[in-house]
């Protein structure tokens, strides 16, 4: 009895936290989404979301988030695999994680310098004879910088999954005559699929609502749902429309979690 009581007491901070900082804000967003700009109760925001402007924005957000996630995965998986083979793997892992401690804005400003007309990247292109190109404010720079920023979050879960892998399984596959590629495809990859799923969730969802980079690195040539939310809240002060976009983002995120989530509970 006493035990139960103290258990409940310890539960209070958690419940309070979830209620105040997770459930209440979501309910507030839902509430605001039903008001038009003049504060009247209406569904006009939802109607507006299904106009070509916002649908196009949603599609392009998805496309960019998909590219960012895909490229991150392509880079992160081999990296994580090599990391598990190194001698001081924790040290190498630390070196990959350290850049993610630096403020996003600082990194973005650094890239403005690197990708600028007179920056290091163009200096290099001059030297090898290609000649200077416009790199800053293009789709390429946007995806490159986003991938750079998200990569540690992709490597970490994949590394953990690979690290936990029992090496005897690979030996067994080898003994039974599987080629290296087959071992990877039939043994290693299926056993690390959870790490890949987590990594994709951790990258795809924030990538869907990126907003600072769209201005600093893409010069507003890329408009994502995040940019629109920022504009509606800070500039137009159309909280209703901003909230409506946020509601759709939340729904989309739940769907993604559901699709990529682990459904084999209890195993």
């Amino acid at each position, binding site marked *: 009895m006493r035990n139960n009581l103290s258990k409940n007491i310890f539960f209070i901070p958690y419940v309070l936290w979830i209620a105040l900082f997770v459930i209440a804000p979501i309910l507030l967003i839902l509430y605001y989404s039903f008001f038009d*700009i*003049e504060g009247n109760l209406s569904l006009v925001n939802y109607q507006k979301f299904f106009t070509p*402007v916002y649908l*196009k*924005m949603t599609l*392009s957000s998805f496309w960019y988030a998909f590219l960012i996630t895909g490229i991150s995965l392509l880079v992160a998986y081999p990296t994580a695999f090599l990391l598990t083979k190194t001698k001081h793997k924790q040290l190498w892992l630390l070196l990959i994680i350290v850049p993610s401690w630096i403020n996003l804005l600082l990194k973005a400003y650094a890239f*403005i310098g690197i990708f*600028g*007309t*007179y920056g290091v990247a163009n200096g290099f292109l001059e030297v090898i004879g290609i000649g200077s190109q*416009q790199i*800053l*404010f293009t789709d390429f720079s946007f995806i490159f910088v986003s991938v750079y920023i998200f990569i540690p979050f992709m490597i970490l879960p994949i590394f953990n999954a690979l690290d936990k892998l029992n090496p005897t399984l690979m030996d067994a596959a080898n003994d039974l005559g599987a080629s290296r590629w087959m071992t990877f495809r039939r043994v290693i990859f299926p056993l690390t699929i959870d790490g890949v799923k987590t990594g994709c969730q951790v990258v795809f969802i924030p990538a869907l609502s990126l907003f600072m980079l769209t*201005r*600093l690195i*893409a*010069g*507003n*040539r890329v*408009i994502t749902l995040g940019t*629109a939310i920022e*504009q*509606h809240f*800070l*500039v*137009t*002060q*159309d909280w209703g*429309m901003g909230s409506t976009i946020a509601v759709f983002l939340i729904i989309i995120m739940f769907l993604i979690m559901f699709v990529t989530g682990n459904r084999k509970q209890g195993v």
Partner: protein
Amino acid sequence: MKKLVQLLLVITIVSALLLYAISRLNSSQGFTSSNTLTIYNWGDYIDTDLIDRFEEETGIKVIYETFDSNEAMMTKIEQGGTTYDIAIPSEYMIDKMRQEDLLVPLDHSKLPNLKHIDGRFIDLPFDPGNKYSVPYFWGTVGIVYNSKMLGGKKITSWADLWDKDLRNEILLTDGAREVMGMGLNSLNYSLNDTDEAHLQEAKSKLDALTPNIKAIVGDESRMLLESQEASIGLVWSGVASEIMAENEDLEYVVPKEGSNLWFDNMVIPRTTKNVDAAHQFINFMLDPEVAAQNAEYVSYSTPNKTALKYMPKEVVRDERFYPSPELTEKLEVYENLGKKNLARYNELFLEFKMHRK
């Protein structure tokens, strides 16, 4: 648990002691609510020597705080945590603050120096009769361009920007009013136009400009123009004068079709505890010699007509920053268009941003 309680107690006691120490320190330096003046201004927007001089002349202690956007400033004044006695918002924000009853009316009998302000800048739509505000600095929106990078080409109008040779050269500022205003002005409409057909026309005109646009950025445009990342930028005159001081090849022009005229103004917010000192300060800043010194430090255009006498001739005669009355006639101040129209401006601006090359 016991330890936690002890810790909390210690923290509370220490905080209380620190608070007490601060209040003691403040009063020993002469900071009491009756003779302090809290000023809330944009960053680096006053010659701090003038604050010292004001303190010496009046015996009032000045606390100086800065903000970086009108919206942030208004939010803080609405919350009312700090007793700001003077704030310096832009014109459209004054209209808004006036409507939300955040401003204290000015007592003109305490501001004899008001007569020095140029008649052009008195009694404007955002504050009829200057009941709540006094202009601090003013300026325009225009085009800054690097004549060297453009091979000596001169830009004089908005229409010049649609030139096919300027591919990928233009930096726009990330503001719906500024960019839509540019589209409207280039079609000879008012930048306060709310006619849907005109707005649509302006938006299509802007879409046609897309190939020439390099990026739509915020404050970074200073750095990008200074370092010759782009040769043309849509900027406020104040930004232009700052970057022109750094890069000699840059030129500033107010397009001949017309443009925006903006003001930053001194107001007394509702949070004030010292209305008298606030009036004293406003009157002090309106003194022609003080205004001249401030204008030379900040390098924005002063609305103080008498102050121009105390300033170097080449500055005052510079038509780029002190345009003639004929040109200012053509310039328009942003009117508060109301939330709905502003939302329409922003929607069209968003659609324009999504338009790809």
